[in-house]
């Protein structure tokens, strides 16, 4: 009868310090848990972490690779932060990214003779529209028929993947690729310039930084952003105040889809210079961006930091896969654990646990 009891109580208010602390502790616990996984695979976790850090941030090369991976994560993550703020759970950014790659790639393959100053902006615009179009399906289903956007947007990821596969195995397969499922290489005008000696396609980076700032200002300093925040926090109050919540749901889905689509353009025009099967275009940036947005506490400006951090972990993860002969899936375990712990940690910012020692 004298066992201590654990009581869960709702917090009245969450301070900023509290939520930062919860985030830090969650990350630490996630690393501990992942350490257990490493141990079970026979790898010294401390050594593994050191390798990850060194791989992602320990050299100029590592940093540049982290930055290159941060670009699609930032573009997609900032858009998702916006959508999540309106409590619209767009889980299908990966598919929207692939659609952006298709449209951007299609333009690159067909209009390679255009001057670069025209071609590249048109590709990004097309990628935005492609991603937005893909997000329009769950958006309209949600706004018209109240269909859960989590399901529809996620399912469309697989459709998008098959669409890419169909194109690179079929009509868009490059004749000179000797049967491999690749499109022809893009014309030079359709390829993004890099920082000297790296894979950092800086036009996309600048675009991503600008858009993250833009979305932050949109949320905090405009009437539309106010409507988005009210819709997310209390949709009943939004409707009561005469806001068109359906319009806002559609808008944030289109915007987040469009940004993911631009990320897809960045990948094909900045890294691969061709279309390839979906796994080749994106190793799951659209899903990893969910972690980026969540770690940033759904603040688009903070995604700049978290995208770089996660980008570094991806690079470090690649490094240890090779160096320690770990299975390729370990990096997904890594990412999954981090998201799990961060979201679970959120609970403690809203509730407090109390240990009761008396009976």
């Amino acid at each position, binding site marked *: 009868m004298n066992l201590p009891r654990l*009581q869960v109580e709702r917090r*009245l208010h969450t301070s900023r310090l509290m939520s930062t602390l919860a985030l830090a502790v969650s990350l630490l616990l996630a690393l501990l848990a992942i350490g257990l996984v490493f141990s079970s695979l026979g790898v010294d976790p401390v050594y593994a972490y050191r390798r990850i850090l060194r791989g992602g941030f320990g050299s100029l090369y590592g940093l540049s690779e982290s930055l290159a991976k941060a670009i699609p994560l930032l573009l997609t993550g900032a858009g998702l932060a916006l959508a999540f703020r309106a409590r619209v759970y767009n889980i299908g950014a990966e598919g929207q990214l692939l659609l952006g790659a298709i449209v951007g790639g299609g333009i690159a393959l067909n209009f390679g003779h255009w001057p670069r100053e025209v071609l590249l902006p048109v590709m990004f615009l097309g990628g935005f529209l492609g991603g937005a179009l893909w997000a329009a399906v769950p958006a309209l289903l949600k706004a018209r028929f109240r269909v859960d956007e989590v399901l529809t947007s996620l399912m469309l990821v697989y459709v998008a993947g098959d669409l890419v596969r169909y194109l690179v195995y079929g009509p868009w397969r490059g004749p000179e690729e000797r049967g491999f499922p690749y499109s022809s290489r893009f014309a030079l005008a359709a390829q993004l310039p890099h920082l000297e000696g790296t894979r950092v396609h800086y036009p996309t980076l600048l675009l991503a930084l600008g858009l993250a700032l833009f979305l932050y200002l949109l949320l905090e*300093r405009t*009437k539309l952003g106010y409507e988005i925040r009210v819709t997310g926090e209390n949709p009943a*109050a939004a409707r009561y105040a*005469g806001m068109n919540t359906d319009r806002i749901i559609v808008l944030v889905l289109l915007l987040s889809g469009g940004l993911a689509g631009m990320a897809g353009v960045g990948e094909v025009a900045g890294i691969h210079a061709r279309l390839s099967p979906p796994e080749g275009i994106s190793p799951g940036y659209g899903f990893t961006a969910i972690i980026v947005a969540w770690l940033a506490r759904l603040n688009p400006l903070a995604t700049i930091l978290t995208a770089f951090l996660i980008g570094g972990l991806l690079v470090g993860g690649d490094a240890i896969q090779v160096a320690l002969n770990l299975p390729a899936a370990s990096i997904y375990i890594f990412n999954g654990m981090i998201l799990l712990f961060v979201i679970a940690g959120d609970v403690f910012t809203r509730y407090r646990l109390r240990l*009761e020692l008396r009976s």
Partner: protein
Amino acid sequence: MALPPSPMSVRSWRFRPHTNGRSCEATVPASVSATALAEGLMASASVPPAVLMRGITKRFPGVVANDRIDLEVKEGEIHALLGENGAGKTTLMNILYGIYHPDEGEIRIRGRPVVIRSPQDAIRLGIGMIHQQFRLVPTHTVTENVVLGMKRGILFREREARQQIEALAKNYHLEVDPDARIWQLSAGEQQRVEILKALYRQAQILILDEPTSMLTPGEIEDLLKTLHRMKEEGHTLIFITHKLDEVTAISDRVTVLRQGKVVATLETAKTNERELAQWMVGREVLFRLNRQQAQVGETVLRVENLHVLNDKQLPALKGVSFEVHRGEILGIAGVAGNGQRELVETLIGLRPAVQGAIVLNGQSLTNLPPRARIEAGIACVPGERMTALVPGMSIAENMVLKAYRQSAFGKSGLLDRRAVNDHADRLIAEYAVITPGRDTPVKLLSGGNIQRALLARELSSQPSLLIVASPTSGLDVGATETVWKILLEQRQQGRAILLISEDLEEVMTLSDRVAVLYEGEIMGIVRGEENNLERIGLMMAGALRLPREEWV
């Protein structure tokens, strides 16, 4: 000249149909004559009390909900727990039922010290609780709900359970069809299922949390019959209420709570409503508001033959018609659930009208979206306050929830933070909202301050029509007075106000005219004068319908 009726008279009316309830006063044993304290000592010496709570303290972040509370409930009595909203009654009973755990204090059931860790523990000790919000599974039958959670082997012996339930229902006058599904039942019937649930679990001590709040007068009468029957059968009842007439009508003894403390334990037969009211609020409660002659002007709102469906697509309003004029308060009285919520939602555009017309200042609003109605001059403080607020956002941002579109708060799509802040500061000062600052999230404000802030926001747009629903529910006496004063001031300034409230006292205090809503229909519209009280009561119970030409 419309004299404000004394709230007392309203209260005493409310229970007049069930004066049989007063017979219980005679059942108080003659031996109960010493003071409550001495009584308690005597009782504990002979028959231990059914419930003894001593020094119970429960703290929540920022408040002491229960402060060293002593409560003694004798075996076989009906004990009223009286107090205003927030006095700590429900918290105390949730402790007794094992939902909360006290920070300090001890509980004895029939003299035996106990630790109640969960409702299961409470049920094992023979304690049952009827919550204000029923805990039933809507799609299940009555029988299934009653036996839910009872571990009696793996098979569900439905026929046996049904027979037991029918026997219980018959013995305690709890008429309800054991095969009906919960969603098909009225609030009163659902409450009967809750009581059956407790009886089926062999509860000897039954806690009822404001059991009359959702009931029609007829259902209240039935409930009282059941309670008396339970007393006859030897059950001990604890009856949470904030209504004085209920205390005097059915309880043997009453414990009064104020701000988390016990202020008095009295024998009901030896006290009266006035004395109880003073104990409850700690000062003279009967504030008489000066309602001056209305300067009624032109028609502001005209509602004609309005038909509306509820969430289940069943008719909620069936041909409702009324008008509200400048400078008057039209009160809509009625027991909760007779179409009030649907009426408010339809007027502000959140629910479509199937048929009929809504006309504001000559402009037809029927089926225009909410925004168009806000711009046409309708303001609304809904009954569920949190649907009109964003709890996690600051007061400043909440104060512009409707007005943010105006160019005063930023041009070309931008939000001018400084204008938003100035607006909030102005309203906070004008309406004396108590808050650490405009950046405080509204969820941290007290109920009274939230209501002030809401009224401030809604009135800041200078609306032609203000709709207020249950504006003082959950507020303490001081906050209630403030809200009432604000509404009467607005009326004096010529505002048209539509007041929808289940609190008859409130309707009678404020309204120039009173329309009674019963099962989606207006039963009649009369002047808000005390001598109409009886007719209003009959209309609320559906027993009187005034012909249209007699409406005022």
